[in-house]
C-alpha cells in the first residue's frame, strides 16, 4: 500500500465521519423543528438562523457540564457504556456507500468508510452491539429505573433484531438474482439497483422503463418490516419503552449527565441516520439516480449521487419524525405482540414467498 492509497483511505474515513457528525447536528435540529411544526409550535429559533446552531450550543453546554458519577454505580461498566453506544453507531454508517466512486489522479475514491464483503452481517452485528451499551448502562447505574430500561432494551432488541435480519435476508436473496451470485456488500447491492425495471415485463416496458430498479418495488413488504424493526432497534417512539420518560424517568440514561449523556444522545441520532441510510441503500437504490452526465458541469454530476443518497435517507428519517409525532408509545405487551406475532411470522412468510417466486423464475415449475 502506497502512501497515496493510505491517504485516500484516511480521507474517506474522515469524510464519512465528518459527514455523519455534521448531519447529526442537522438531524437533531430538524427533528425539533419538524416536531414543532407538527404541533403548531415554533421550535428552536434562538441560536443562529432558524435556530440551526441550537444543537451545537446544547453540545457545548453538555461538554462543559460535570459528568456526575453516582455512588452506587459499577464504575468500569458505567464509564464504558457510552462508548459502547457511540462506536457501533458510527461503525454502522462506515458500511454505507454515500456517493458514486470517482477517480482523482488515477486513484479511485470510494465514498464509503469501508466496503466489507460481509457488510450487512457487520451491520447486524454492530446494531446488536449497541444493545449492550443500553443494557450495561442500565445495569451499572445501580438504580431501578435504568435497570428496568435496560431489561426492556434486551427484550425489545432480541424481538426486533430477528425481524430486521429476516427482512434483510429477503433483500439479499433478491439481490442475488439481479447479478452474478449473491453478495452482502452494500456497494454491490447499490450497483445492482442501477437502471430501471424496463426489461422485466416486456408488455409493461413503456411504463416500467421510468420506474427505477429499486428493491423497494419487489420487496415492499420487506421494507415495511424493515422500517418498523429499525424504529424499534433505535428505541424511537412509538417503541421508546427503553427511555419512556413518563414511566421510568429516562430509562437507561437516567443516571448519566454531561458528556456521557451527550454520547448516548449522539449515538441515538447517529443510529437513526445510519439505519435510514441502510434502508435507503437496501431498498431505495442508494446513491443511484440520473446524473445527466455531459449535460451539466462535471462536478454537478459527481455530487448528484450524494444528493440523491441524502434525499432518500432523509425521506426515511422524516418518516421516523412523522411517526414519532403521531403515535403514542406502545404498551410492553403490545410491543412483544407486534414483534413476535406479527413481524417475525410476516417476515418469514414473505421470505418463503419471495424464495418460491425467485426459484420459480430461475428453475421453472418443479414438475418440469
Amino acid at each position: 500500500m502506497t502512501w497515496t492509497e493510505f491517504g485516500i483511505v484516511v480521507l474517506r474515513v474522515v469524510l464519512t465521519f465528518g459527514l455523519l457528525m455534521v448531519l447529526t447536528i442537522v438531524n437533531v435540529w430538524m427533528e425539533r423543528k419538524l416536531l414543532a411544526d407538527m404541533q403548531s409550535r415554533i421550535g428552536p429559533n434562538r441560536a443562529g438562523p432558524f435556530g440551526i446552531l441550537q444543537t451545537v450550543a446544547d453540545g457545548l453546554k453538555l461538554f462543559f457540564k460535570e459528568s456526575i458519577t453516582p455512588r452506587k454505580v459499577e464504575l468500569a461498566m458505567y464509564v464504558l457504556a457510552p462508548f459502547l453506544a457511540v462506536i457501533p453507531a458510527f461503525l454502522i454508517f462506515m458500511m454505507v456507500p454515500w456517493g458514486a466512486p470517482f477517480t482523482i489522479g488515477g486513484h479511485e475514491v470510494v465514498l464509503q468508510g469501508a466496503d466489507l464483503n460481509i457488510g450487512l452481517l457487520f451491520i447486524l452485528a454492530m446494531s446488536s452491539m449497541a444493545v449492550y451499551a443500553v443494557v450495561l448502562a442500565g445495569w451499572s447505574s445501580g438504580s431501578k429505573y435504568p435497570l428496568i430500561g435496560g431489561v426492556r432494551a434486551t427484550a425489545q432488541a432480541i424481538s426486533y433484531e430477528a425481524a430486521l435480519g429476516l427482512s434483510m435476508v429477503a433483500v439479499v436473496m433478491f439481490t442475488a438474482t439481479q447479478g452474478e451470485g449473491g453478495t452482502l456488500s452494500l456497494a454491490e447491492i447499490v450497483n445492482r439497483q442501477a437502471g430501471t425495471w424496463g426489461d422485466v415485463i416486456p408488455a409493461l416496458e413503456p411504463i416500467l422503463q421510468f420506474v427505477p430498479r429499486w428493491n423497494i418495488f419487489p420487496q415492499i413488504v420487506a421494507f415495511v418490516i424493515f422500517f418498523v424493526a429499525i424504529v424499534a432497534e433505535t428505541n424511537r417512539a412509538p417503541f421508546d419503552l427503553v427511555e419512556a420518560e413518563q414511566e421510568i424517568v429516562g430509562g437507561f440514561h437516567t443516571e448519566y449527565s454531561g458528556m456521557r449523556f451527550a454520547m448516548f444522545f449522539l449515538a441515538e441520532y447517529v443510529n437513526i441516520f445510519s439505519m435510514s441510510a441502510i434502508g435507503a441503500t437496501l431498498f431505495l437504490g442508494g446513491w443511484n439516480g440520473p446524473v445527466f452526465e455531459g449535460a451539466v458541469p462535471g462536478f454537478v454530476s459527481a455530487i448528484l449521487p450524494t444528493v440523491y443518497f441524502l434525499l432518500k435517507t432523509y425521506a426515511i428519517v422524516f418518516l421516523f419524525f412523522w411517526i414519532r409525532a403521531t403515535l403514542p408509545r406502545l404498551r410492553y405487551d403490545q410491543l412483544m405482540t407486534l414483534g413476535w406475532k406479527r413481524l417475525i411470522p410476516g417476515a418469514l412468510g414473505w421470505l418463503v414467498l419471495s424464495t418460491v417466486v425467485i426459484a420459480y423464475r430461475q428453475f421453472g415449475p418443479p414438475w418440469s
Partner: protein
Amino acid sequence: MGIVNELWKGLKVTGGTMLRTMFGGSELVTTQFPKETRQKPQRFHGRHVLNRYPDGMEKCIGCELCAGACPADCIHVRGADNNPESPTSPGERYGYIYEINMLRCIFCGLCVEACPTEAITMTHLFEMSTTNREDAIYTRKELLMDPSGNVPHMFPDETIGDLSELESADGWMRATAPSGVAAYEGVKMWRDTAGERTWDPEPTQEDADRVSEYGEEGDG
C-alpha cells in the same frame, strides 16, 4: 387493514398540521414572549402598588392588616405617627416602613382584600426577575406611586415588561370594592387614585351574559 387506516388517519393530522404551520395557515400556540405578549385576564395578580389619593396623600395608614393577612408572611409594615403640620396620610398614622419580599409572595391578593383604605392594589406587571435576592425585596421606594400617579419600577431601564401595565389595577378591586355586594356591580365604588386612571368598573354580569347561570338575585 384497520390498523393501516388508523395509522394513516393519525399521520394525516400531524402531516397536515406541519404543512399548515410551515406555510402559515395554522395559528401558532407559541407566544414569543418578550417580543409579543398575551392579553392578560382582567383580574391578573401582578406586582403590588401603594396608591395615593388624587391630592397626593398616601392611602396607607400603616395598620398592618395586609401583613396580618399575608399567608406567606412576606409583608413587613411599620406605621409611624403623622406629622400634624404636614401629614403623609389622611389618618393618624402612615406606612413608615413598607416592604414586600417578592420571592416569598404567592400573589394571592389577600393583602388587597384586607386593606381597609384600598392602599395596596395589584397591577398587571409580572416581569420582576432579579439577579440577587435583595433586589426582590420591594420597599416604599419601589411600591409607592408618586403624587402624579406614576408607579416606579425596580429596573426602569432593563425591564422586558410593558411598564404601562403598572397603571392598570387588578380587577378584584374594581369588581367588589368596597363590600362585595352584588347590587354595586358595574358601579364605581372605590375612592379615586392619583393620576390619570381608566379603572372602569368591571363588566356587569348582564354584560358578561351570565345572568341566567346564577339567577336574577345573585348572592347578595
